[in-house]
């Protein structure tokens, strides 16, 4: 069993409620931080821990905090990004639904570090039953003296508010989230100025993911150094992985970032192998935006080393032969899945979610969907594959926010690794309507595939 920092108590009966959470040691980190540490010392511990943003980008959290501008007389805000919408990702939902107090505790400590007196949780609108759970936890924490005015007699005031979105993937991007929190359309802003200088209502703002803020609790309880010793290299601590697709045990798992991808997929502690005893075809290891990897490049890197479930190892080989840790949305495809069809659903997703501000993304995502639909339905041409490649190249890097890149990468990776499957669709326009391409040569052992 790997070490658990976030989900350790997830199975304790009644942990969702305040009394049990408190009895299990909850809110100790607030006591420790507010009584014995200065806000800068809290930030220092988070820096020492090596914690990286768990929403997808993996930016060091302590460093992000230290960028926050602190001009006199202007309020600062912490905003929790609970707009979890990356296909394959459902870990934050699990945390909020079953361990709401862990998030609230992390938010109080983080608000103290940043000097945020009004902290907002921006939660996606579709999680419509969760705001009540969070609001109850907030009310309980307030009744317990952990929120409100002059918390623990330290003079620190803090309130937490839940703000619901209304269905827009783009609002997971921090500047779009800020726009949405201000009551506008979720159009990302041009940076700079960065939110750390000019965020919500033009005030300095830090936006952090749910899991990131929850991880602050064990960091303060055990010290940043202890946290940094878990894991490997720059992948410190534990990571929540939401596993889905054709596996036996879909769900949310907390892992130490030292285990191998193979162990994660096949061991009974985690995914429990491919459903129905089928073979592994491919996997998108970090949410829909990151490159898909065929089985041979997933379990071992191009250098033949065992691939591990962490930031460095998953991106080993770059985009040509690697992928990314991303948000931890782990999507597994078995031998019967069609990569063209799967890529089409993702292209449709990005077309639907493009905010429409930048032409390359607004137009490009629509064209990618149309072309992929044609290929999937046996109406494609060979030249369409090159056209797709060309379109994704012209989106990537040419937009205000990373949604353009996120739309381009899955298409690029699918063509890069599964071009033969796209060609088969073009060459077999009737057959591709009734059966899938299957595994082709990609499930063969690496040695055989490269021999």
């Amino acid at each position: 069993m790997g070490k658990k920092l976030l989900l350790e108590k997830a199975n304790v009966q009644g942990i969702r409620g305040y009394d049990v959470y408190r009895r299990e040691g909850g809110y100790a980190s607030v006591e420790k931080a507010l009584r014995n540490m200065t806000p800068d010392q809290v930030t220092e511990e988070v820096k020492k821990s090596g914690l990286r943003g768990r929403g997808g980008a993996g930016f060091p959290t302590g460093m992000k905090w230290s960028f926050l501008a602190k001009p006199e007389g202007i309020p600062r805000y912490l905003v929790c990004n609970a707009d979890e919408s990356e296909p394959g990702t459902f870990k934050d939902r699990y945390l909020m639904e079953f361990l709401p107090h862990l998030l609230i505790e992390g938010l109080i400590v983080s608000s103290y570090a940043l000097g945020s007196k009004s902290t907002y949780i921006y939660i996606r609108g579709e999680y419509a039953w969760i705001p009540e759970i969070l609001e109850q936890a907030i009310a309980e924490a307030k009744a317990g003296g952990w929120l409100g005015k002059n918390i623990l007699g330290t003079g620190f005031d803090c309130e937490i508010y839940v703000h619901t979105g209304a269905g827009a993937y783009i609002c997971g991007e921090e500047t779009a989230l800020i726009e949405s929190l201000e009551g506008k359309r979720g159009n990302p802003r041009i940076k700079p100025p960065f939110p750390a200088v000019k965020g919500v209502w033009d005030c300095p703002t830090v936006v952090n993911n749910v899991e990131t803020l929850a991880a602050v609790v064990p960091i303060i309880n055990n010290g940043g150094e202890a946290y940094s010793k878990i894991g490997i290299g720059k992948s410190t601590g534990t990571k929540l992985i939401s596993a889905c697709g054709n596996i036996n045990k879909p769900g949310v798992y907390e892992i130490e970032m030292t285990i191998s991808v193979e162990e994660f997929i096949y061991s009974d502690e985690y995914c429990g192998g491919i459903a129905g005893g089928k073979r592994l075809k491919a996997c998108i290891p970090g949410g829909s935006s990151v490159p898909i990897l065929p089985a041979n490049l997933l379990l071992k890197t191009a250098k033949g080393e065992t691939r591990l479930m962490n930031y460095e190892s998953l991106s080993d080989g770059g985009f040509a032969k690697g992928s990314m840790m991303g948000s931890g949305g782990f999507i597994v495809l078995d031998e019967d899945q069609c990569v063209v069809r799967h890529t089409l659903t993702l292209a449709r997703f990005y077309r639907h979610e493009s905010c429409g501000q930048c032409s390359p993304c607004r137009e490009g995502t629509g064209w990618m969907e149309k072309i992929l639909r044609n290929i999937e339905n046996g109406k494609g041409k060979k030249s369409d594959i090159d056209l797709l490649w060309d379109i994704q190249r012209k989106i990537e890097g040419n937009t205000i926010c990373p949604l353009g890149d996120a739309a381009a990468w899955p298409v690029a990776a699918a063509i890069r690794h599964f071009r033969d499957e796209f060609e088969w669709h073009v060459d077999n326009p009737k057959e591709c309507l009734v059966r899938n391409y299957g595994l082709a040569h990609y499930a063969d052992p690496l040695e055989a595939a490269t021999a």
Partner: protein
Amino acid sequence: MAGREAGAVNSWTMVKFSEDKLKKVDEIVARYPAGKQKSAVIPVLHLAQEEFGGWLSVDAMDYVAGLLKLEPIEVYEVATFYSMLNTKPVGRFVFEVCQTGPCMVRGCDDIIAHIKQRLGIEVGETTPDGLFTLRTVECLGACGYAPMMQLGKYFREHLTPEKVDAIIKECREKAAINN
């Protein structure tokens, strides 16, 4: 727009929150700094949609604009951006079936086909009795529990044709009781 015409002359009298709901609006506005009541627009539009039949007519949007001291356009542009805010009428029960990759590999296409067949409508349509609307949506964050759909406030997960039939029955029974 349809909402204004359908509402006729004194339609604004119908578009009005109860005292309870108005209190709720005040509570929501109080979450934000003074003068930043625009931030309340999405939460208040959710309230309005709940209260005024599942969708936002122009009258409803104008009413919200008045409550929050915004120009109507500020409300329209938000209402038309977010996919959960309906600017056209919907059925009493809206089946929103996820169709993105992770749900697709777990068979959402079969579920959608089954619902179409059972309700006799296409995606985007409402049954003639106004009870059901079928919609496909993009990833709702329940990938591990696929296939799934949203029905009102809650998710219905691990769907099978049998489960879908039970849900349809449940909705019909609910409608019969409340009528």
